[in-house]
């Protein structure tokens, strides 16, 4: 059927519209003259003319709201559903007569109305008929409304009456002439930038706003004292009285009254997400206390002072994520006019943990007024904290203990002011430095001792992170991949632990790992029961690669530590003076705690029992470090060694002097990886504990010189309580080869990308001319900091690039060439190595480096490349490079592609 003539159909349609019934039918018959397609087209027009699509049904001017859809329904729909009924002028609800609509909120419509009995004007909030949705809801609504109606405070919009009529619930409130704080903020936002800044970057502005919101804090205090939480503090609920200029808070407790009703349950939050506290986001409506209002008021403060929201985003989800996890930009980086005190107030109110906020609105009000008046805040002691910190840096070991005390006293001091309340429900981790580092926590499983998956617990400063008692590895990582790690033994029931581990730079890591052995990642067997060469029971443990000291820590090394930190001396030095002759002998009389602190000072940690054993028995789980053959005859304890059990320390010391060997010694008995004396000299403390015994004793591995050989190396295992030391136990240190977690974005991106077009150019240490160790260091220094799918905007730029003649179709080899051509070498000595994350292979960019000038885009529809990734690589923390690779998705992620 051919397409009928649109114009002709239109003409006939218009004529037919003028007629009805038979006349119309006659006209249609005549005009269409048997052209069925034409007739059908005209009929179709006529049918739809009668009932046009809702969108097209209208008068003169169209208003087309554009809504962004979330969770299956357009927000416009949500808005319409939640809006109240539209009441015409003159409509009556009890004694209230509607004048006109003032505004719409999330829960209903507000009208200007007249109380015909008292003859006064009121604001009448008429709730959507959806509220309250149940009997329980109705009861709660009435109960809460009653409480709110009892509030009388100059900062609170008074509720005159709550009632219902015509099956509609309403609240009659004081009518305030003036705008909302929200529109005041919008007005400022709409100013041209220069005017806007001139306006807000003045002391007059922030002082005025601080005083104004102090009034709101007063109002909150009044309500909180009566057990009423506002729950929805936001600029649109703050009314600015035109006559007096006073700010007043409206809609008290409304959120609570309507809690549990359909709208909130269906996932749509009543109101906006920007002002919600983290606990509101996480726990919804249960267990909220007054401090949620303090947070929300903090958000308002922030917005008023900067005209930006501290937690902003395109979607609710995005906003929620930020509310829970993002530390907002400091106020003064946006509005430098604001005083340091006020900035501190804002950020204190915005603390994620309610315990860190102002505990009462009255305190916030007082702080705001003081800051507006330029008076010092009595409860802010930054200088003291900073002094303490400097002291700690100088005395790291003492500090580890002292800070716990300091913290306790500070917490008490702060508690007096109500700023923070210390709750020692369990262990509390505190990490104060280095600022900005990410803190990952990995728990060792009880009882298997397997290392758990890393959890990001925050970004330094982490002031109060509660964790269950347990054995943990804490890793502090910087953006560039540098990291420090610490083993923390947090025994039950509770305490405070300040994690203090300076992050070594990459140069320092080279030094730190100098005398260490790299153990490759892999799955290793461990067993306690290798008897007569037969493996009876073995556990497979997966280990990431790590470094371990080739030799035990010596007296000389430990002396450096003691000198540098003032840490207590081992017993044998105290009693018999430090002996230069024993400088290279393994240090003994070390408690597990001493060993931990030494390792931390060195930028290392103790090995776990698995790491220790894996390194000693590498690669095949052998019976002894040197293999499965019997130990050499002279390895039996020397004459007199038994005396070590003697009570007299002097006899034990003499045995230590003669029994131990300087390290490194007996290279013929090294393990495959080159570890000295894992089955001789002294026993060694590990970081692992035995959870089954009280006090969580440490597991000690290895064999001391004075012990007869009674079994294989896997059986060489004893236990030490945290403060136990003796003349036959020392230690060696370890360090992970890389931080536990890469960039999460990178990881999620990697799950998508399976095949990569083109080939990588693998490079080896020979290729780069570096030594194996240096090469390893560079490898570790490289870290993918970001990968992202190429967006349409980037794609557009790429086409520009191509138009410029930069043709980069093909795989990584050509990408490599272009990358190479786009890099400007800062000097001939600089070397850039780029890795494609997730791949063991390497891309060498040769003697180039530094800033990557221009992004690259690879995309070729012809060659079937469907996605392209931008990969940003951080090299040695010095510069970033970007690499773009294309790939085809072959995982189950592969949906219909564009």
């Amino acid at each position, binding site marked *: 059927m051919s397409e009928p003539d*649109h*114009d002709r159909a*239109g003409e006939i*349609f*218009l004529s037919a*519209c003028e007629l009805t019934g038979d006349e119309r039918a006659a006209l249609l018959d005549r005009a269409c003259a048997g052209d069925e397609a034409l007739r059908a087209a005209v009929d*179709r*027009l*006529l*049918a*739809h*003319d009668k*009932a*046009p*699509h*809702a*969108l*097209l*049904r*209208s*008068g*003169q*001017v*169209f*208003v*087309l*709201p*554009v*809504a*962004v*859809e*979330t*969770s299956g329904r*357009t*927000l*416009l*729909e*949500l*808005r*319409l559903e939640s809006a109240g009924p539209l009441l015409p002028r003159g409509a009556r609800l009890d004694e209230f007569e509607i004048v006109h609509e003032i505004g719409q909120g*999330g829960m209903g419509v507000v009208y200007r109305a007249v109380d015909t009995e008292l003859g006064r004007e009121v604001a009448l909030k008429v709730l959507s008929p959806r509220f309250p949705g149940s009997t329980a809801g109705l009861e709660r609504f009435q109960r809460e409304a009653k409480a709110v109606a009892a509030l009388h405070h100059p900062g609170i919009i008074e509720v005159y009456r709550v009632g219902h009529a015509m099956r509609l619930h309403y609240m009659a409130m004081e009518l305030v002439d003036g705008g909302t704080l929200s529109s005041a903020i919008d007005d400022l*936002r709409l100013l*041209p*930038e220069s005017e806007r800044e001139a306006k807000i970057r003045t002391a007059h502005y922030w002082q005025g706003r601080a005083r104004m919101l102090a009034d709101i804090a007063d109002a909150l205090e009044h309500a909180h004292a009566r057990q009423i939480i506002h729950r929805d503090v936001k600029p649109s609920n703050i009314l600015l009285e035109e006559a007096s200029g006073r700010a007043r808070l409206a809609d008290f407790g409304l959120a609570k009254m309507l809690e549990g009703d359909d709208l909130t349950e269906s996932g*749509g939050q009543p109101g*906006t*997400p*920007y002002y919600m506290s983290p606990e509101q986001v996480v726990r919804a409506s249960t267990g909220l206390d007054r401090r949620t209002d303090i947070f929300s008021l903090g958000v308002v403060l922030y917005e008023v002072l900067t005209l930006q929201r501290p937690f*902003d985003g*395109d*979607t*609710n989800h995005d906003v929620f994520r930020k509310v829970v996890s993002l530390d907002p930009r400091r106020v003064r980086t946006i509005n430098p006019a604001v005083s340091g005190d006020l900035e501190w107030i804002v950020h204190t109110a915005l603390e994620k943990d309610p315990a860190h906020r102002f505990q009462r609105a009255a305190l916030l009000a007082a702080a705001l007024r003081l800051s507006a008046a330029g008076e010092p805040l009595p409860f802010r002691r930054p200088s003291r904290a900073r002094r303490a910190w400097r002291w700690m840096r100088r005395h790291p070991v003492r500090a580890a203990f002292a800070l716990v005390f300091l913290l306790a006293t500070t917490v008490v001091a702060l508690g007096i002011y109500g700023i923070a309340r210390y709750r020692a429900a369990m262990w509390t981790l505190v990490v104060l430095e280095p600022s900005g580092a990410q803190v990952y926590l990995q728990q060792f499983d009880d009882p298997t001792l397997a290392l758990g998956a890393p959890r990001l617990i925050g970004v330094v400063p982490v002031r109060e992170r509660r964790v269950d008692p347990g054995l943990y590895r804490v890793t502090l990582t910087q953006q560039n991949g540098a990291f420090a790690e610490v083993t923390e033994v947090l025994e039950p029931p509770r305490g405070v632990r300040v994690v203090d581990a300076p992050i070594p730079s990459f140069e320092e890591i080279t030094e730190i790992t100098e005398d260490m052995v790299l153990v490759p990642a892999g799955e290793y067997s461990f067993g306690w029961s290798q008897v007569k060469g037969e493996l009876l029971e073995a556990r497979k443990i997966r280990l990431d690669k790590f470094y371990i000291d080739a030799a035990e820590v010596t007296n000389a090394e430990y002396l450096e530590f003691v000198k540098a930190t003032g840490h207590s001396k081992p017993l044998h030095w105290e009693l018999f003076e430090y002996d230069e002759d024993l400088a290279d002998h393994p240090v003994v009389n070390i408690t597990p705690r001493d060993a931990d602190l030494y390792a931390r000072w060195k930028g290392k940690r103790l090995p776990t029992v698995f790491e220790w054993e894996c390194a000693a028995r590498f690669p095949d789980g052998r019976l002894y470090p040197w293999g499965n053959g019997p130990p050499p005859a002279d390895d039996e304890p020397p004459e007199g060694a038994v005396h070590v059990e003697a009570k007299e320390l002097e006899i034990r010391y003499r045995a230590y002097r003669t029994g131990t060997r300087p390290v490194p010694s007996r290279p013929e008995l090294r393990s495959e990886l080159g570890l000295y004396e894992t089955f001789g000299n002294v026993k060694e403390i590990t970081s692992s504990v035995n959870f089954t015994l009280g006090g969580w004793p440490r597991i000690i591995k290895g064999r001391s010189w004075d012990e007869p050989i009674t079994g294989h190396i896997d059986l060489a295992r004893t236990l030490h309580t945290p403060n136990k030391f003796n003349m036959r136990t020392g230690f060696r240190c370890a360090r992970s080869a890389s931080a536990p977690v890469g960039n999460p974005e990178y990881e999620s991106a990697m799950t998508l990308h399976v095949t990569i077009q083109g080939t990588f150019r693998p490079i080896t240490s020979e290729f780069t001319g570096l030594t194996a160790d240096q090469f390893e260091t560079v490898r570790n220094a490289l870290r993918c900091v970001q990968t992202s799918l190429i*967006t*349409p*905007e980037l794609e557009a730029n790429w086409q520009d690039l191509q138009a410029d003649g930069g043709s980069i179709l093909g795989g990584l080899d050509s990408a490599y060439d272009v990358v190479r051509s786009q890099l400007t070498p800062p000097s001939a000595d600089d070397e850039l190595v780029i890795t494609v994350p997730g791949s063991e292979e390497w891309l060498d960019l040769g003697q180039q480096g530094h800033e990557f000038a221009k992004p690259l885009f690879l995309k070729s529809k012809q060659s079937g490349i469907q996605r392209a990734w931008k990969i940003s690589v951080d090299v040695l923390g010095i510069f970033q490079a970007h690499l773009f690779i294309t790939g085809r998705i072959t995982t189950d*992620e592969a*949906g219909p592609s*564009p």
Partner: protein
Amino acid sequence: MNERPIDMTPTLSAVSAGDEPAARRLIPVVYEELRSLAAAYFRRLPPGQTLEPTALVHEAFVRLVRQPNVPSEDRAHFFAVAASAMRGVLVDAIRAKATAKRGGGYGRLTLSGVEDPAAGEAIDMLVLDDALERLAKRSERQARVVELRFFAGMKVSDVAFVLGVSKTTVEQDWRIARAWLSGELKDEETAG
């Protein structure tokens, strides 16, 4: 984006005087202005709120044409340009969103008449755009009438002025277009 927009008044007069190249020069400027305004709105508005294209067009007008007393002819011309720009902005915004968030439940821009909220079926903006495209193939003027009224909120008299036809013609075009589009949109709804 925070740069002060250029004053378009002189260009507008040229367009009004029938200067075709001036009109073409105007389009990208208006487009850009609308795009940045829309982007600013999308960012600033809480997710629960809506954006009214006609309000945006008015704001763009105020920003671009800073003369207090613009002749109503010039004003109409501006709106005529703005209507197509606005349509482009919306469609682009949706496409960008869809591309950026492909694979997830991306935001969908929908249109919905507020005149009769109860009936309020929301229409996917892309569906409307397609339908208008098809209508333009049959009658460019009818499509243009819809565009001017939808995206710039123009009155019949202004539309008539801009298109250089009588008000009656505009009204007739509107009636045909309305019936035709209703058919297309409803088909789309039942199909999809």
